[in-house]
């Protein structure tokens, strides 16, 4: 067995243990130090992934596999974690007694999502997913003295358990029908029995689990409430890392387990995609809280990514991956701004963004850029993501879906621009400036540059996505 395949996981585990030991035995191990160790750990893990990028193969009797797709997602998860750590370090010390523990849970999430990316067995897939989801239950309810945070954690837990139940029921049905939990084994069995109603039923159950994680209709109801109540840095990772984890699940299950049910997949997913886009974008029109607004917006974006899955093929998956990348970059920048503004003003109301351009021109400019990218305006990263997704839909004879997606862009522009109006056109009652610490300045600068560069020079990111997408087929 080739244990070197697990180098990134071992490294991450090492960082987790280091943090744990530090927390337990050193009295003066502050949250600041935890954040530093975590950040350094992220760079270390990223380096290990890149150094081992050539390694391919399976471990543990084939339940663990390293493919370009897995590498793509691991790079995404660990990169997305970096700004989240910085956000958490800004946000939590003022709110809770032991902010250091949060970093431990963040690392658990990361390890869970690493195993999720590499899982080649339905049970491992499920367990890895549960590690990720359980960590998020805790993190959503992390601010114990705030009722709204606990409520959001509880809500997430209840709906999440229901979705997990559906998913594990689907998996156990598959096991009953095929006698194996190996992804390759199940795929062969499903392909051997075309038209079997049982497998179609399994597909529906599995979709419930996916729908919850990626926040698609009809499992999207938790999103606005959880986004509103959970701490901002956690929401930042929930909307990028956790969503991406949901799409790992979707890609693996739909394309590695059920490739033979292509017709049903296209039909179901394209319907869900259209409804999700409309629900998210129409719901966002009338929001008064910025985190709720981003909750609805994240539902809308899940819909766009689902378009790529409905289209399928290398082209569709490539679009999915590029979209996740672009959306992740943009949403992290936006949530960084939300964290900083929320910390200073003690409010997430959209009203409190009035006159932000006077109070902090830098934050307002970053938010403006992020909103434009989310709306899909060129030459920013979000535009090319939407372009790829719509192109994939048109190329796979889903013209109506592409039209729905295209028109929803105009709707989304309305609420994104309304926020721009608040920031730039309206005057605020208070005029005290909002201070931006140096690490935040640097990180936001890098994220903004990345949004522009990925949008202008789409080639490298697209090749990376295509390289990962090809390995799925």
């Amino acid at each position, binding site marked *: 067995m080739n244990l070197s395949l697990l180098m990134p996981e071992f490294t991450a585990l090492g960082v987790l243990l280091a943090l744990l030991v530090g927390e337990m035995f050193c009295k003066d191990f502050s949250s600041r130090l935890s954040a530093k160790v975590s950040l350094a750990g992220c760079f270390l893990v990223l380096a290990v992934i890149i150094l081992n990028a050539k390694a391919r193969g399976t471990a543990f009797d084939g339940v663990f596999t390293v493919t370009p797709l897995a590498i793509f997602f691991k790079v995404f998860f660990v990169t997305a974690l970096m700004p989240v750590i910085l956000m958490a370090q800004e946000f939590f010390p003022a709110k809770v007694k032991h902010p250091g523990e949060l970093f431990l849970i963040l690392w658990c999430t990361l390890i869970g999502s690493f195993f999720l990316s590499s899982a080649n067995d339905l049970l491992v897939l499920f367990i890895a997913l549960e590690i990720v989801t359980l960590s998020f239950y805790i993190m959503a309810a992390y601010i114990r003295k705030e009722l709204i945070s606990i409520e959001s954690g509880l809500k997430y837990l209840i709906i999440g358990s229901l979705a997990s139940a559906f998913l594990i029921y689907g998996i156990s049905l598959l096991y009953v029908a095929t006698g194996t939990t190996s992804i390759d084994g199940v795929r062969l069995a499903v392909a051997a029995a075309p038209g079997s109603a049982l497998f179609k039923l399994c597909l529906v159950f599995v979709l419930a689990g996916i729908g919850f994680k990626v926040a698609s209709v009809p499992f999207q109801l938790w999103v606005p409430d959880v986004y509103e109540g959970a701490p901002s840095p956690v929401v930042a990772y929930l909307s990028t890392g956790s969503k991406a984890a949901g799409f790992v699940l979707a890609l693996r299950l739909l394309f590695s387990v059920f490739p033979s049910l292509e017709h049903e997949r296209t039909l179901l997913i394209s319907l869900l995609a259209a409804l999700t886009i409309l629900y998210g974008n129409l719901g966002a029109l009338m929001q008064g809280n910025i985190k709720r607004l981003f909750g609805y917006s994240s539902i809308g974006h899940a819909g766009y990514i689902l378009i790529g899955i409905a289209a399928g093929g290398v082209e569709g998956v490539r679009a999915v991956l590029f979209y996740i990348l672009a959306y992740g970059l943009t949403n992290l920048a936006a949530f960084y701004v939300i964290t900083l503004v929320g910390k200073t003003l003690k409010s997430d109301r959209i009203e409190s963004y009035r006159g932000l351009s006077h109070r902090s021109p830098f934050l307002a400019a970053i938010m403006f850029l992020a909103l434009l990218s989310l709306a899909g*305006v060129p030459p920013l990263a979000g535009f090319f993501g939407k372009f790829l997704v719509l192109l994939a839909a048109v190329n796979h004879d889903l013209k109506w879906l*592409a039209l729905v997606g295209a028109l929803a862009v105009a709707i989304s522009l309305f609420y994104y621009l309304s926020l721009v109006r608040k920031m*730039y056109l309206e005057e605020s009652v208070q005029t005290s400036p909002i201070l931006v610490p140096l690490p935040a300045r640097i990180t936001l600068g890098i994220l903004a540059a990345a949004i522009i560069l990925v949008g202008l020079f789409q080639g490298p990111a697209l090749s990376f996505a295509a390289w990962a997408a090809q390995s799925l087929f």
Partner: protein
Amino acid sequence: MILALPWISMLTAFALLFVPKENIRLMKQLVLGSCGISSAIVLVLFLKFDPSKAGYQFLHRWEWIPSMGITYQVGLDGLNLTLCVLHALVSLAGAFMSFGEKERMKDYLFFYLILTGAIYGVFTALDIFFLYLFYETTLIPLYPMIGIWGSKNKEYGAMKLTIFITTGAVLALFGLLAFYHQTGLHTFDLIQIQQQLAMHPLSRGFQEWLAPFLLIGFGVIASLWPLHSWSPIGYAAAPTSVSMLHAGVLKKMGPYLILRLAVPFLPLGIQRWAAALSVLSCIGIVYAGYAAIRQKDLKFIIGFSSVSHMGYILLGIAAMNPAALSGAVLLMFSHGVMAACTFALIGYVYEQTHAREVSDYGGMAKLVPFWSVCFVMASMASLGLPGFSNFASELLVFIGSWQHFPVVVGLAVFGVLVTAIYLLRMVQHVCYGPVSERWPKLRDVKTLSEKLPFLLLLGGLLLFGFWPNGLLRVIEPAVGALLK
């Protein structure tokens, strides 16, 4: 050289971010420098352009994303050369006019340069992907520019304009993606598509299905009736240089993209919808003309007048023959320069008085003679007085489309009369009559740097008014190639 056109402005815009806020002088120099150099490049290209040669000139091509067939390709034919000349004139004049903005000058100039660069991008790119990318990039700066620095109802105007044009843009995007799929060539390269489709045209059914998406999508920004309502409100709200660029140049991107993409690739589709398009444009001409008569606000009059004039351009496109199309392209140029000049003039006075109603003014010819001369000239150009290029172009449109839609053209000619009514009334009230007592301190356009934008624009109008052939000699071969 041609490659530099969009990027000079874009890079200067980013350089501007590092200029300290207080150093307004340096900012002005940067903006003037970048617009001036771009305009000089356009002038050189215009002089070097050889009308006797077929096809595109100054071609450059870079593979951008080979796996999707995206290339960054630039080049000029008579069509976009004319529009580049238009943009060179208007953007330079607009740069002078944008120095009037006092607050947050740096941000304004930043957006102005991004807008200018993106428009050059649209007018030089010869790849569908980049055409669309630059086209939608022009939308970014408009919302804050109108919203922050505009006047009267600016938030509503800015939002309405942005949402309308974006809706059109995404409809067109959908159409273009469907087109890319249907050709099966896996390339966005216009020239390659042109060559292929010349041999294997798309099926009639598909062309007829696709044409409305492009016509409506790009028609919105050309203020095609009944999708025009963003236009007068948006222009009335916008600051001077945005009104100039938008009414003068941005609006012409709609007909330009229809000419560039729909006319050569979907000729059968356009023919199928030509009658409907001609009727809509005729309604636009007459309806907007009547609406202009009823307006009291100067900027609304010009806003509706521009809707009405865009109708002639769309009518010319609907006719799809060389004369009408040449007229439409020439009118794009003439109307652009004229509209920019009028908005610049109104903006010049508005900055001092903050009043825009016709009744606020009177006897301006005595108060501010130079301004009035320019205002009268621009208005005369607008109503198609011979000697201005508007006359030649409207005539060509009428001649060209007469044989296809005699009834529509008959009604549209009636629109010229309506135009004369509101423009002459406006000129009469504003420039002549009893001198208004309200503005004793009104300043005329005095220094050379103040006069320059007006001289530039009116000079352009008169030059090509007396010498329409200067533009027609490059437009006609290009139009011929489109119809082939």
